[in-house]
């Protein structure tokens, strides 16, 4: 599970800088996640300076 809160997000790109698998991108629509690349490690969740990302480990993965 990956939830991005567009109202909290400041579009700083911090999540992108820490993503170990290059799964995030900042587009004009906001933060976009590549589901195939994302390993739901949650580093972006911990890192986000304003708490705009919530990640829960997917059970199937």
């Amino acid at each position: 599970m990956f939830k991005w809160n567009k109202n909290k997000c400041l579009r700083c790109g911090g999540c992108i800088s820490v993503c170990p698998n290059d799964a995030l991108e900042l587009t004009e629509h906001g933060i976009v996640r590549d589901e195939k690349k994302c390993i739901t490690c949650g580093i972006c969740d911990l890192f986000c300076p304003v708490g705009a990302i919530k990640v829960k480990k997917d059970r199937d993965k």
Partner: protein
Amino acid sequence: MRDVIIVGAGPGGSATAKHLSEKGYSVALYEKRQEIGAPKRCGEGISLGRVERLGLNPPKNCIRQKIDGAKIYAPSGKAVEIDYGKDSGYILERKMFDKWLAEEAARKGAFVQAKTYINDVVRERGRVSGVKGESCSEKFEEKSKILVAADGVESKISRVAGLNTTCNPLFIDSGVQFEMVGIEIEDPKKIHLYFGNKIAPRGYLWIFPKGKDVANVGIGIIGNCSIPAIDYLKKFVENKEELKKGSILEVNAGSIPVGGFLKKMTLDNFLIVGDAAYQVNPIHGGGIYEAQLAGRIAAEIIDEALQKKNTSDNQLNKYNIEWWKQRGNSLRKIEKLREVVENLSDEDFNYLADKLTGEDLVNFTRGNSLVTLAKLLLKRPHLIKLAKALL
């Protein structure tokens, strides 16, 4: 066909563009944001010595406040004062400063274009030979002899180009910053830095005055903290009499590299400058100077490579060597200090605040006299390991 394309118009990109344009090369500098300098990144401080060393003479509107020193607060509240000398530091207006640097590059002949997002590189026989992107939603491709990635800590271009720049996320601090007005600043000629694990785990909280009642108030904390940086900052502001009645004019966030330096920042026809290569002072997270220094070095190496008509990785490797010689090695020394600081408890901070002078702190942040610190740490049995790492 450009001689050089530079991605990212922060201080590093603009410096590279300026120096290369001065030498007569055809340079394009692309910035993804619609306005260069905005929204600004966290820090706005630089010392006068650094500004002079870079040969800069910024116009008055780039400088909000001149600084004489710093006050470093331990968790106990005890402050250690540092005297830098009269007007020896600047608090910049980054929006103006970054834009002025880009203007300078343009005046020297660089083609500068905002709202231009570079998302891929063009390749020829496997080597990087240009960029693909979108400028004001129009797709384009452009070739260049050399490509410079100066696209910040979230750099995509380096990875797309084939350099694995992913570093341990623990080497990146999570930062957030308010521009506040209507506050009381006890001493507006000093920057104020607050340390402590309850205030700013691993990092610090800063008040950089931009006038008598205006300041850049921000925080950088370790990146794997379960409480977001903004919550620490809000708590501090709410509990501080001088700040809590203030208004917030800006909220900005960002990631601050504090280590993870790259030995190799080059490929055939390609190199990285600034935050994208983690060229930042790891003790305070400032990189305005480092990025521009790297830009100047890069321009010299690129000049030589273009003159020799040899832009191979082998030739550009001189950039790696020069950077490490001029700055990298001393930053690595300073990184050791950061490794110590991040392992200190609040009690340790208080202990050191009692023993150290402002002069000691200045020396440490320059990577000097670390033996003095090590000797103090040796007196605390649980810190012996840290002390040894310093020696």
